[in-house]
């Protein structure tokens, strides 16, 4: 496996991949949770600020399938500074792996997760793309690993001829993206999210994390006779 070299600590036994099936969704869900993400824009948080629920792995699997580019960095060996997966999650993962019919690992136990960084992009394959779910294992941050993921994403998108690339960023993520060459829109557009809420829990609204969003009513045919 190639080592990631260049600025920052040299981490032996790491490899970068754009293969979707290189990503174990259980590990990815845990990595995202460790970085405070669960694919919802406004996730439900516990009193201590941590996520109430990690992202559902089957949904995550589908999201990866429908993403244009998926970049992951794996490490062979224990993560310096500590594992991001809790013991119970690790045991659950081993159980799932043993029971999964097509598991390539055939139930061989691994002592530690291998996924240390991740990022994906959604696009229409020609005009526009957006970056989502950037994550680096907490104990390995600020070493240029996230930057490598992002640069690989940009390279893969560039290869497809897509140069209009956006990313929705929280206040904390902004310096990272700025350092990687992202900035305010040249064309001065305003980023807007659908947040219209509904107080009543009925068929006209749906819950997404902390938000209960109002679902617009269906169009009905209208006849106007003069």
């Amino acid at each position: 496996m190639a080592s990631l070299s260049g600025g920052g600590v040299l981490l032996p036994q790491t490899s970068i991949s754009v293969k979707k099936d290189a990503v174990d969704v259980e590990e990815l869900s845990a990595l995202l949770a460790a970085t405070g993400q669960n694919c919802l824009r406004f996730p439900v948080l516990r009193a201590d600020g941590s996520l109430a629920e990690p992202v559902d792995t089957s949904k995550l699997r589908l999201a990866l399938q429908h993403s244009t580019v998926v970049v992951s960095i794996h490490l062979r060996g224990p993560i310096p500074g500590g594992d991001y997966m809790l013991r119970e999650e690790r045991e659950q993962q081993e159980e799932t792996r043993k029971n999964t019919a097509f598991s390539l690992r055939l139930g061989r136990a691994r002592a530690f997760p291998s996924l240390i960084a991740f990022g994906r992009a959604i696009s229409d394959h020609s005009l526009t793309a957006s970056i989502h779910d950037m994550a680096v294992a907490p104990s390995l941050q600020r070493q240029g690993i996230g930057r490598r993921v992002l640069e690989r994403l940009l390279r893969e998108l560039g290869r497809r001829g897509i140069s209009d690339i956006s990313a929705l960023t929280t206040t904390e993520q902004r310096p990272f993206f700025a350092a990687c060459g992202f900035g305010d829109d040249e064309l001065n557009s305003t980023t807007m999210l659908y947040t219209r809420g509904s107080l009543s829990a009925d068929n006209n609204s749906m819950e997404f994390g902390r938000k209960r969003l109002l679902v617009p009513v269906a169009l009905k045919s209208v006849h106007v006779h003069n």
Partner: protein
Amino acid sequence: MMTSATSRAYLGTSCLIWSSRPPCQGACFIQSSKRGINSFYQVSGTNSQNFLIPTFGSYKKGLYRRRSKVIAHSWDSLRSGFVKQPSTIVTEPKDEELSDDTAAHDAEVVIIEKLQPDGTMEKIVFSPNEGVDIQELERLCLKVGWPKRAPSKVETALKNSFMVASLCLIKEISQPDGSSVEVKRELIGMARATSDHVFNATIWDVLVDPLYQGQGLGKALVEQMIRALLRRNIGNITLFADSQVVDFYKNLGFEPDPEGIKGMFWYPRF
């Protein structure tokens, strides 16, 4: 107005109306919305018009012939859809909440129907996933003043968008036997959304013919798109609005930079 840093080019003129960046241009393509990853479209030219027809299962023949000259890179994205991947088995979620009215959902809806003084019937019809004519979209984009974009790029973009909704003006003449004959069908509005089918969606290229603006058509387009996305459990709906249309989207329930979430864009530094 092309900037050197980007090939986006979009926007820029004061005629830009109803749009969320970037403007589309040129051809349009049908979008598959609810059919999942296993439906493919092939282009068939009839009478010098290009229409995309869904072909289930015949993607190998039709698709590669068309796509070979346009896109080699999307092989990966196609491949991921049908090659068995032992460690990650793909199963589409069961959309129980959609099954009861999916047929109604995919159908065209007549928004306005007016009997004209000359006896013809004019209808404005909303189509959530009907075919859109390429040349018509190019004409429409010119009308709202958007700069031209390479038709093949727009073609690919529409093909790979999660949903493309359109508004058509249909003129019908009633026959002596009581039936109606369609004499004209004109594209007067469109909106599209890209998505990962599960969590995130971004709405792009919302446009309505200036002659038909002010009637709530743009609102209907965007609202129905939001409805379709939410009912598919896609809750992160984003768009990037020009300054002229920020209020339009605010009225539809969009919030600028909620909780500090901002959009950033990549600019290659040479």
